[in-house]
């Protein structure tokens, strides 16, 4: 299933049961986009659309996400839930309310994400000797996760691992005029932060679209507190894939000198955002990675994007007490 990213200004319509785009620029051809094999739509440009089109999105069960000029997430059109069944919801609720059960799942997410963070850094161990120390520190922190008995403690260890991980990333990404010290948000203070923020939001929304296709309720999460946001389960599941998909894409873009500091970013007061060209470059790299197929079992191949969906099904099995959830590890 594809994700469609729209960077073209124009008018959108439902025409012959396709998404019809009439560009503002008269020199460009109008387009008919079939939505049968599409899982989500992302709008970055100025578009006008009507209710009839939203009805069509709902019919095809496709969530549409909207972003502002700087690539900040504005909101989504999230169609009426189609695949939700009461049983999964009750099980999810039960696993959230029961503190011990919730802790088990939360630990699994941290286990998966920290393992993947370590694997990303380990690739560069030979190149940068300083990473050894950071990796060892992360591993020792990772070993303390299991003995914790409340969510806050697990969360703070996760935060600590992540802080060390970003130090490691800083070492790798310190080239081609780029530098990265610590994570800053709203607005991101440097270019690497801008890429991480943008990439993470894209991944959250792709994960949300995958959750939408399953019977899971995206409002009830286990690691993150579900009360302050509308959707939070996608944050939990994304944790596992953030290092593999987003951070590795950023490393590739910087290492191969594809993204340029002076061309692909727009400075704003006290911060910096990706420009339109930068956004497209990062999305192209992320999509390439999501389409990469990996061998899961003997000869079963699966793309990373299907793997996100598969992660949801594994979670459902865990909730139903059929099989203990094992997070994906590189």
């Amino acid at each position, binding site marked *: 299933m594809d994700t*469609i990213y729209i960077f*073209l200004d124009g008018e959108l319509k439902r025409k012959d049961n396709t998404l019809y*785009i009439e560009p503002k620029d008269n020199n460009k051809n109008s387009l008919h*986009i*079939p939505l*049968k094999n599409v899982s989500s739509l992302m709008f970055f440009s100025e578009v006008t659309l009507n209710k009839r089109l939203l009805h069509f999105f709902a019919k095809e069960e496709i969530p549409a996400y909207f972003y502002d000029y700087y690539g900040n997430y504005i909101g989504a059109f999230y169609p009426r839930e189609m695949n939700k069944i009461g049983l999964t919801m009750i099980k999810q609720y039960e696993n959230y309310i029961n503190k011990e059960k919730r802790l088990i799942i939360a630990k699994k997410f941290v286990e998966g994400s920290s393992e993947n963070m370590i694997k990303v850094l380990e690739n560069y161990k030979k190149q940068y000797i300083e990473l050894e120390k950071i990796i060892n520190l992360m591993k020792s922190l990772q070993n303390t996760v299991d003995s914790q008995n409340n969510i806050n403690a697990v969360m703070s260890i996760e935060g600590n691992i992540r802080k060390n991980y970003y130090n490691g990333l800083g070492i790798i990404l310190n080239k081609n005029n780029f530098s990265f010290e610590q994570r800053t948000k709203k607005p991101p203070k440097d270019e690497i932060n801008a890429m991480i923020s943008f990439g993470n939001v894209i991944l959250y929304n792709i994960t949300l679209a995958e959750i939408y296709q399953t019977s899971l309720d995206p409002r009830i999460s286990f690691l993150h507190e579900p009360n302050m946001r509308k959707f939070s389960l996608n944050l939990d599941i994304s944790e596992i894939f953030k290092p593999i998909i987003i951070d590795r894409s950023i490393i590739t873009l910087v290492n191969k000198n594809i993204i340029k500091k002076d061309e692909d970013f727009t400075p704003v007061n006290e911060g910096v955002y990706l420009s339109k060209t930068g956004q*497209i470059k990062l999305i*192209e790299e992320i999509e390439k990675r999501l389409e990469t197929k990996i061998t899961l079992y003997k000869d079963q191949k699966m793309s990373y994007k299907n793997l996100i969906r598969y992660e949801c099904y594994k979670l459902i099995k865990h909730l139903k007490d059929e099989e203990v959830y094992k997070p994906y590890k590189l």
Partner: protein
Amino acid sequence: MSMYLISVYDVNEERVAKIHKIMKKYLIWQQNSTFEGYITQGNFKKLKRDLYKIINKEEDNIIFYIFNSKENFIRLDFGVVKTKFEGLIIK
């Protein structure tokens, strides 16, 4: 499992528009009477069923070339590409 489909058709003029309309619901239009794109098994069945209702079996012909993925063949373009629809990023 989804597969990659290339479809070309040669049908009576009366039915060209109808076929085009059905095809573009599922696949991406490339040039006159040529479509391509990823499609799931289920949708392919639906597409065939829809087409079957319309075509005249004595006159018309529709060909589907089926590939596992886009990577299994090379596409060369000469001249103007009619649909700029690359990587599903629409610029």
